């Protein structure tokens, strides 16, 4: 019978699964498949599994709970094994790799930080200090200019904005790196210009969040809004 695989944990992880339910329209209790050096947390695979709010949330909830209990290797959403025997076989085959990976993230959590900037605020800043942009804007390009002129103006603004956001990124990442064991930069999504994950020892989580808060306050005047998520299972570091 097909099983949904949530995570690998170490043999000493408590893996308390009481009250935890997984993905699917009618979630069923979870169970473990034990290997010598790693333990898999699995559940029934629902027929209607989809990357939708319900199931994504369930996946994340299970991992968050396991993560509170100890170190986990979170699996990417949607992993299905043919049977529990197949999982057990994998735990045997990959025993050393899992042990090594668990050691690498032992006692650590992921913190994901995103930043967006209010467009009017940054455009206003650019207008104040960039004479070329101001000249183009004042020449009526934006309202009556032809398409090419408007694109040229927009491109000049965009270049200046991008440079400002690059400097903000450097400042933020530099300040937070001090508290992190590892870092992984993600792709900018939608209006966010920064999307970066840090691997932080749980004992330093408070310091890390405090520094992020300080940065958030400092950058507020620039219209920058930081959003911090964490502690999370170390999705980006497995």
């Amino acid at each position: 019978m097909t099983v949904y695989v949530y995570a690998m944990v170490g043999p000493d992880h408590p893996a308390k699964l009481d009250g935890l339910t997984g993905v699917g329209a009618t979630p069923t209790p979870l169970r473990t498949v034990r290997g010598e050096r790693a333990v898999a947390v699995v559940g029934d695979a629902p027929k209607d599994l989809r990357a939708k709010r319900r199931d994504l949330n369930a996946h994340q909830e299970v991992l968050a709970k396991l993560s509170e209990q100890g170190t986990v290797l979170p699996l990417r959403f949607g992993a299905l094994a043919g049977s529990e025997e197949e999982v057990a076989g994998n735990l045997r085959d990959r025993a050393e790799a899992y042990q090594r990976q668990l050691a690498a993230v032992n006692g650590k959590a992921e913190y994901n930080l995103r930043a967006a900037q209010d467009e009017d605020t940054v455009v206003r800043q650019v207008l104040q200090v960039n004479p070329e942009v101001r000249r183009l804007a004042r020449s009526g390009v934006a309202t009556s200019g032809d398409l090419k002129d408007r694109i040229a103006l927009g491109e000049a603004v965009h270049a200046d904005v991008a440079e400002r956001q690059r400097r903000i990124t450097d400042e933020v990442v530099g300040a937070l790196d001090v508290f992190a064991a590892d870092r992984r930069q993600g792709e900018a999504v939608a209006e966010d210009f920064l999307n970066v994950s840090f691997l932080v020892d749980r004992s330093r989580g408070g310091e890390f969040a405090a520094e992020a808060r300080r940065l958030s306050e400092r950058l507020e005047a620039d219209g920058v809004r930081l959003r911090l998520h964490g502690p999370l299972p170390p999705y980006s570091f497995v």
Partner: protein
Amino acid sequence: MTVATTESQLPSGGPHQKTDGGLYDILDLILDRGLVIDVFVRVSLVGIELLRVDARVVVASVDTYLRFAEACNRTDLENKGGVGLPELVGEMSEQGAHGKTKGALSGALDSFGDALGRRSGSREDGGEEQPEAEPRRIGRRSSRQKEES
């Protein structure tokens, strides 16, 4: 200092948070990161990957340039009379930013919440939806906010 207390905002009381707004924010972690075990099958996620790649492309497109040109015109009109006195301007823009940040905050939260439902809904129909030009939302929201304040 206006650090908003919405749950997806940088927390002021502690680093914990679990909200749907937060779920949207970490979708790429759940879907694109995490351990992949090659002997296990992975459910098909057609559509979701598209959403993020396209959103990224939008960032440096003609559409973006035109939006900046428009924003430039809008904010320059507001600023006329203030520009040319740098020391005053700095102060003004700082005051302005506080109001705007609040506007951008709730606006972004709304669109994140909507986005998850909307996107997964249309995926159900098997459609490959076009990404919306979401970056505009912040600008629109904050200009509305400005008029109110």
